Each structure stands twice: as structure tokens, then as C-alpha cells.
């Protein structure tokens, strides 16, 4: 099937382009500044008391090597790509000598778990409610749900997470507001640990869902109210097909197609939201790691997290793109 192959190829090309441009932005950002991260690290290290100049020269040398800042701009650029290709960002400075890759690898399952659960939940809930609201336009409960979802939609992740933190942390302290599981608890596959895990994920997930819901809701509602006026829906209604069947397999299914594209498009923004939310709730994922890396002045860790984020998000988008033909057969037939 040549149509599918062409589609596959174009999506793969897009993936490569996203990674390429993203990495180049990172490179330009890190190299366009008047500030030298090596000097900065040395300044931080020698802040207290004097160190002998030879030691500093040695330190400068090894840091240059460590950060891949040796040689001219061209050589640095090549070194930059080589490190990305092999996934080696060197040891982290704040958790020396643990490699950056290990730190990131430890944090990633938390972020992925949080992202997948909240994104799937938000997407399904938003589309289901939006679809119903578009089909049953006069229903009061659905109208109210729409207003509620719209009210949360424009408020950025940080503020919503922050409001939840204040509400459930100070005003009505019933939920844990920090960490991924209870402190001092042995990690293992048992009921207590899993319960603690779930309990700690409620607030981060809730804040992600609250912010995300409105977009899908409104998108789906307007899509459905357009599809409902199509001739084939009227035909099915006249033909006596049950309303439920019309809603699910005639209306929703067609309206869902652009929503899948929308999901791929907004994944980057959702990822931003997840790492911000993590930071607010001290969730042990990429976001918390990133913020603490900045505070610790850990150059390789910050660069490593940025690079991994770009690759991970574009890979996730590619995955959605590859699943897309399952939903929209026209792509295969083209």
C-alpha cells in the first residue's frame, strides 16, 4: 500500500526535523550567551576561600572536556551531536559521579506515568463529555459541565496546581501535597506502597486533568455539532438507527479524527504542563529534576534533560501519528 508508506515516510521525516530543529535551538541557546558555563562553575566552586591557580587551570580543562566545549564552534557542534546520538551527557555535576543518563532514566518513569495517565484520562473524558454536549445541546447538566471546563481552561498549569496545593495542603489537608510516595516507605510491589503511590498522584493528575479538559471538551462539542448536520446522520435518523448508535459510531467516530491530530499537536504543551505540575507537587520526575539542576548549576544535567525531552516528545508524537491510520482509513487508501 503506497499511500500508507508515503504517509509513514512523511511522518518519519517530520520526526527527524523536530529533533533536528529542537537540538539546534538548544545548541544556539547554549552557545549564544556571553556567559561561559565553565567559568560559572569554577566561580561557584571557588567562591569560598582561595584555590591555587594550577588546580583551577586543571579544573577548567576537565570541565571543558566534560561539557563538550573544547575546540572551535564546528568541533563543538559535532561533539554535541555525537553525545546526543549515543545518549551520553557525561556525569552530573551536582550528583557527581552519577551519569546524567542515569538520573534522567530514574526520573522518566514518573513523568511518563503521570503524563500517560492524565493525558489519556483528560482526552477520553473531554471528548466523551464534549461529544455528549454537542449531541444533546439542551441538556442542563452538560451545559454546566461545559462552563466549568471552560472556566479552568485558560488558567495555566502552574496557577491551577498552586490553587489545588493551597486548597488541599493548607485549607483542607486531606491529600499528600509532595513527593511520589510516602517517605520512609519501602518501595515494593505491595498494597501499601501502591496505595501511597496512587494517593500521591491524585493532586498532580487532578491539576493536569482540570486544565486539559476544557480544550478537548470545546473542540469535540463544536466538531460534533457540525457533524450532526451532515446528511448521512439525518439519513440514519430517518432510517431508525438508535440514537446511541448514531452518536457513537456515526458522529463521534468521525469527529474523533481531528481530535487525534490535536492530541499529537498539543503533546509538547501537555509535557510542559506535566513538568511544571511535578515541580509544584515535588513529584520525583523530570520537572523536579530540571528545576533542582538549575538551582545546583548543573550544566550537563540541564542540557541532558532538555535534549531528552525534545526526543521523547517528538517520539510520542510520531507514535500517535503512526496509530492515526487505524482511525482514519482514508490515509491508507490514498
Amino acid at each position, binding site marked *: 500500500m503506497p499511500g500508507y508508506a508515503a504517509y509513514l515516510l512523511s511522518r518519519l521525516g517530520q520526526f527527524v526535523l523536530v529533533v533536528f530543529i529542537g537540538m539546534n*535551538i*538548544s545548541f544556539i541557546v547554549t552557545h549564544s550567551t556571553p556567559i561561559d558555563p565553565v567559568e560559572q562553575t569554577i566561580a561557584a566552586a571557588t567562591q569560598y576561600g582561595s584555590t591555587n591557580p594550577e588546580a583551577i587551570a586543571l579544573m577548567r580543562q576537565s570541565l571543558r572536556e566534560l561539557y563538550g566545549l573544547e575546540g572551535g564552534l564546528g568541533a563543538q557542534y559535532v561533539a554535541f551531536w555525537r553525545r546526543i546520538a549515543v545518549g551520553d551527557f557525561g556525569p552530573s555535576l551536582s550528583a557527581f559521579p552519577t551519569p546524567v543518563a542515569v538520573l534522567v532514566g530514574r526520573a522518566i518513569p514518573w513523568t511518563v506515568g503521570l503524563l500517560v495517565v492524565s493525558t489519556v484520562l483528560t482526552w477520553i473524558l473531554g471528548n466523551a463529555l464534549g461529544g455528549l454536549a454537542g449531541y444533546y445541546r439542551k441538556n442542563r447538566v452538560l451545559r454546566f459541565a461545559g462552563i466549568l471546563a471552560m472556566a479552568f481552561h485558560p488558567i495555566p498549569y502552574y496557577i491551577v496546581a498552586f490553587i489545588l496545593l493551597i486548597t488541599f495542603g493548607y485549607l483542607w489537608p486531606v491529600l499528600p501535597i509532595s513527593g511520589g510516595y510516602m517517605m520512609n516507605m519501602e518501595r515494593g510491589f505491595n498494597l501499601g506502597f501502591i496505595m501511597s503511590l496512587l494517593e500521591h498522584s491524585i493532586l498532580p493528575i487532578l491539576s493536569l486533568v482540570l486544565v486539559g479538559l476544557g480544550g478537548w471538551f470545546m473542540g469535540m462539542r463544536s466538531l460534533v455539532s457540525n457533524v450532526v448536520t451532515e446528511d448521512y446522520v439525518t439519513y440514519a435518523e430517518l432510517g431508525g438507527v438508535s440514537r446511541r448508535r448514531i452518536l457513537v459510531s456515526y458522529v463521534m467516530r468521525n469527529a474523533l479524527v481531528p481530535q487525534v491530530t490535536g492530541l499529537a499537536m498539543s503533546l509538547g504543551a501537555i509535557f510542559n504542563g506535566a513538568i511544571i505540575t511535578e515541580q509544584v507537587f515535588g513529584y520525583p520526575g523530570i520537572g523536579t529534576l530540571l528545576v533542582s539542576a538549575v538551582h545546583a548549576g548543573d550544566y550537563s544535567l540541564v542540557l541532558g534533560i532538555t535534549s531528552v525531552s*525534545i526526543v521523547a516528545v517528538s517520539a510520542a508524537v510520531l507514535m500517535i501519528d503512526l496509530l492515526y491510520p487505524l482511525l482514519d482509513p482514508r490515509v491508507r487508501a490514498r
Partner: protein
Amino acid sequence: MWRILRDLFRHNRAFAVGMALVFFVVVFATLSLFSPYPPNDSFVVPPDLPPSWAYLLGTTSRGQDVFWLLSFSIRNTLLFGLTVAFISRILSLVIGLVAGYLGGVMDRVLMSINDTFIVIPLFPILVLFYFVMRDRMSWSLLALMMACLGWAYDARLIRSVAMSLRTREFTETGIFSGMSMRQVLVQEHLPYVLPIVFSTTMNNLNWSIGLEVTLSVLGFTDINTPTIGVLIYWANQHTALVAGIWWWIAFPVLLVVIAFVGLFLLAVSMNEYIDPRSRLDRVHG
């Protein structure tokens, strides 16, 4: 123009509410011009006072009047959003109109780049940007950076309109009467996409203000220029919530939420105005 605004105000509740909220926020921001204290002076009033008639929104632990500080902050935050919106509007207009008008290979190349900017996770990049700039980070640099990253979504929207404008007869007429591409785009196509530009401006404002607040709260911007995020940052630094100084945090959060909801309602109602189908809907039911 005025008639459109008046009609929207009368018949569209979302527009009226949004307008009122935004107006309130703008008036509050304008008040900063009459502030008795410069924004960065501390210990000009007694610290930690709860809201009262003398200090409407209370005072901070650094001896600042929350009311006046907040008006400075919201002014800077709004100006920041407007700067980002203005620069990124130019980018998205140029790219959207050119891609839609030219079509073909040029369109595909531009849209591939465009989609890339939509997908790339911006937050880590902005954090990286702060990380390398550190103390040289300033309000205007961040605005420029965000404008360069935040044009893509709207460029796509503008391009889709430009594509249909391309096939209209007046475009042909323009080309045959010897107008250059620039002339066609600026004189013929631009007026058609302006309503969309206005509605996307509101969304873009929300986006940039949201990111600015987030970055500043984490301390990843210039923390000496008061913005809403910087205000919350300092409150957190002084553990205002634990100390019970809730007014230092509650009022900035409340004000910025009012701004977000107001801008969003304006964007939604303008979208409805642009899409004639939903206008008909409103008339019928």
C-alpha cells in the same frame, strides 16, 4: 467597527463579561501610574499588615503595599504579554500568509518548520535559556525569545485562511493588474485575516503570560522587575503561606486568574463572531 463591538456587547454575554474583566485588569494596571511608592522600594509601609482601609490588600513582609505593588506587577505582566503577542503576530502573519499564498513546496517547507515549533517542548528550552543567561536575563530578552517560539499555532490558522483567499477572484484580479506578492498580501489578504489575528492575540497573551508567571515563580527570570510571577516568587521566598500572610499570594493569583478568564472569553466570543455558523445558532436559539 464600533457597531460590531456594540452588537457583540449586547448579544454575546461571553464578550460582555470578558470585556468587563479585561477592562478591570487594565484599569488596575493603569493605577500604577499614581503609585505613591516606586515599585522596588521596600519597607515604605509597616510589614505583614492584613488588608484594611489604610492598606486595601495588606502589606508584604518586605514592607510593600500589596495594592500598589500588584498594580505595577500586572502592568509589567500585561506589557510583557503584549510585546510577545506583537512580535509573534508579525512572524505568524508573514509565514502564514506567504505559505498560504505560494502553496506547493514553499508551503510544505514552511509548514514542516511550523509543526516542529508546535511540537517542541518549550519549557525546558526556556529553562535552558535562563540557565545560560542567569543574571543577564531580562524582561525584554525573555519576551523576544518567547515571541520567536510562540508564533507557530497561529501561523497555521492564518495559512488555512490565506489558502482559500488565494482561490478567490479578487486575488486573480490583483495579480493580473500587476500587483506584487507583497501588495496582494498586505492590501488584499491582510484585512481578511485580521479578525483571526485579534482572537489569536488573546490566546497568545494567555499563553505568554502563563509561561512568564510560571518561569518567574520558579525564579527563572529577572526577579527584580515586578511581575505577577515575581510577586508570587517573593511571597514564596518569605514562606508567606506558612507565616499566614495569605493576602500576599491570594490577590496576585486572583487578579491573574481574572485576566486569564477575561482574555479567554474575549477570544472565544471573537471566534464565534468570525464563524458565521455559530452566529446563526445564537439567533435561532
